């Protein structure tokens, strides 16, 4: 792409693991609690250049993880953003040092409710403290610092990842050169909270949840977690996309005159639910949805969103939304952009036309790719890469 790129596509390297912070290094949480010991699971792609100016942090969504661009060992499937990260793609490991972490509270190696509570020697379960998006970001900042990186070329993420991006801009503007917020919102709406509450209630209504102590009992609240996933999954797709994909198509010829999955859409949702429980932890789902519900960037600033970005005037922002996203609709992204403008920040914003709904940022959207590619190319150039 750019002849000036320090690394060539040939020497890209995948790295990472689990960063174990010293026992004395506790993560202070918004709730007032402290989390120690702290472990952050992460993956890296590409190499950090000598001037340490090419590092990009990728933030994942609710059920994502650190395996952004490499095969996920749990599922054997490609990384969740392998359409964006890779040779020749907008985030090229031949050019950038890309870091993806698993959020705290998660279940893919970072400290979460399934980790061992040092006080009891048993998994935390519900004794795990409630966390926030800002807590997740604080842990990421600790990792970035531990990796010896002072300034990130970019922090980028979609959905909950986009909220982390906004939190980064609010809390660590001096550590950012640019910020890319995709399909996100500056706060969780009543509807967002409502859907999450359905999911949490489904999990907690499962007898196998056992008040969160299912591990000790050797069971898992699979049914509840599957229902939670099914409800949430509907919010990730647009009505048009669901209709186009399934319509009223039946699984078999004729109706069953019962409650089997007659319709293809039922079968699809059931599959989404059952495959999800194989890779995700029910308590993590409770904690991370709670963190999302608590997210309201303006609330800590007298309700003025622009106040969150007053120190971020040196950061180059890119905000992207999808026209058919009804989970975090374009209006939410516009609110972000208006706040950025009001704060005097340099911001770009585009609404990508698509009927694929919220999940469009995982999917083949040429306009989205072009926007990302253009923004990152210009950002790298501005950084002198």
């Amino acid at each position, binding site marked *: 792409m750019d002849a000036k790129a320090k690394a060539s596509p040939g020497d890209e390297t995948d790295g990472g693991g689990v960063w174990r912070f010293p026992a004395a290094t506790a993560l202070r949480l918004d709730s007032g609690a402290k989390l120690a010991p702290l472990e952050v699971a992460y993956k890296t792609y590409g190499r950090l250049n000598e001037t340490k100016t090419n590092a990009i942090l990728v933030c994942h969504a609710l059920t994502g993880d650190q395996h952004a661009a490499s095969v996920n060992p749990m599922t054997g499937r490609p990384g969740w953003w392998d359409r964006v990260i890779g040779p020749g793609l907008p985030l090229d490991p031949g050019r950038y040092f890309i870091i993806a972490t698993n959020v705290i509270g998660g279940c893919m190696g970072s400290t979460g409710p399934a980790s061992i509570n040092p006080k009891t020697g048993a998994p935390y379960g519900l004794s795990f403290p409630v966390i926030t998006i800002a807590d997740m970001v604080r842990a990421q900042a600790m990792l970035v610092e531990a990796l010896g990186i002072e300034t990130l070329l970019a922090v980028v993420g979609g959905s909950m990842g986009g909220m982390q991006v906004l939190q980064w801009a609010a809390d660590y503007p001096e550590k950012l050169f640019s910020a890319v917020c995709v399909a996100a919102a500056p706060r969780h709406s009543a509807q967002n909270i409502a859907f999450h509450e359905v999911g949490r209630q489904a999990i907690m209504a499962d007898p196998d949840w056992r008040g969160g102590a299912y591990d000790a009992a050797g069971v898992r609240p699979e049914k509840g977690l599957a229902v939670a996933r099914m409800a949430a999954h509907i919010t990730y797709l647009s009505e048009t996309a669901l209709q186009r994909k399934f319509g009223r198509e039946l699984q078999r010829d004729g109706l069953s005159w019962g409650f089997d999955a007659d319709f293809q859409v039922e079968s699809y949702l059931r599959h989404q639910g059952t495959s999800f429980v194989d890779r995700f932890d029910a308590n993590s789902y409770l904690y991370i949805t709670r963190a999302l519900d608590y997210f309201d960037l303006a609330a800590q600033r007298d309700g003025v969103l622009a106040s969150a970005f007053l120190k971020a005037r040196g950061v180059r922002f890119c905000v992207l939304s999808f026209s058919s996203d009804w989970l975090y609709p374009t209006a939410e992204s516009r609110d972000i952009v208006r706040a950025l403008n009001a704060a005097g920040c340099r911001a770009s914003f585009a*609404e990508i036309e698509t009927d694929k709904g919220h999940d469009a940022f995982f999917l083949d959207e040429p306009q989205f790719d072009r926007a990302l590619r253009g923004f990152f190319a210009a*950002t790298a150039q501005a950084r002198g890469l």
Partner: protein
Amino acid sequence: MATGSKNGREDFAEILRLVRPGARVLDVGCEDGELLELLTREKRIDGQGLEISPAGVSACLARGLAVVQGDGDRDLDHFPARAFDYAILSKTLQQMREPRHVLSELLRIADQAIVSVPNFGHWRMRVSLMTRGRMPETRALPDPWWSTPNIHLCTLADFTDLCRELDLRVDACVALSGGKPARPIRPDGLLENWRSETALFLLSRRDEQRPGATPTDLFGAVAVEEPDAPTSPKAKAPRRRARR
């Protein structure tokens, strides 16, 4: 701000001449970002675009420009006061739903506005309407009435009236006519309302007192770079000095 309706880029050269190096510039209806890129390259401006079409926004992002997908009619309100040195509105004011509001917003968020408007008082318009009795279709305004994006056309005289009403000062004005060299004009001259096809204005708030203003220097930025430019006998336009 429909794309493709700006016929030609004849005003770009003039805008390029007016803009001070290193300035903060907002281009409202920036389309594919050509002007912003030109200004960035030639004048090292800190540019921001506002564009309604997805294709235009994509093109701007690909050029590495800061661009916000939005609507000049609605989205200017969200910019803070004096966020920019210049707000540019090239041949799109007549496409706005509320040109008066847009114009006053431009001069709230920027210290100066560069606005170009096609002159409906141009003789071609008048002759066309007089002889054919139909809405004129000319090289400056080529679309038929039922498909034109130009919903708020005005004459040069109308526009200067509006500037007066909004208490705006004309710091410079040039007439642009189909590729001919730009011609500095006195915008409220009777003859100019006949012979100017498009007029490009550099405007600022009249209530704004600027340190070091020299009231005799009528053509402001134009005079700085082109000492032999004819001066307007009427417009009292002090030269603008860089505040920063």
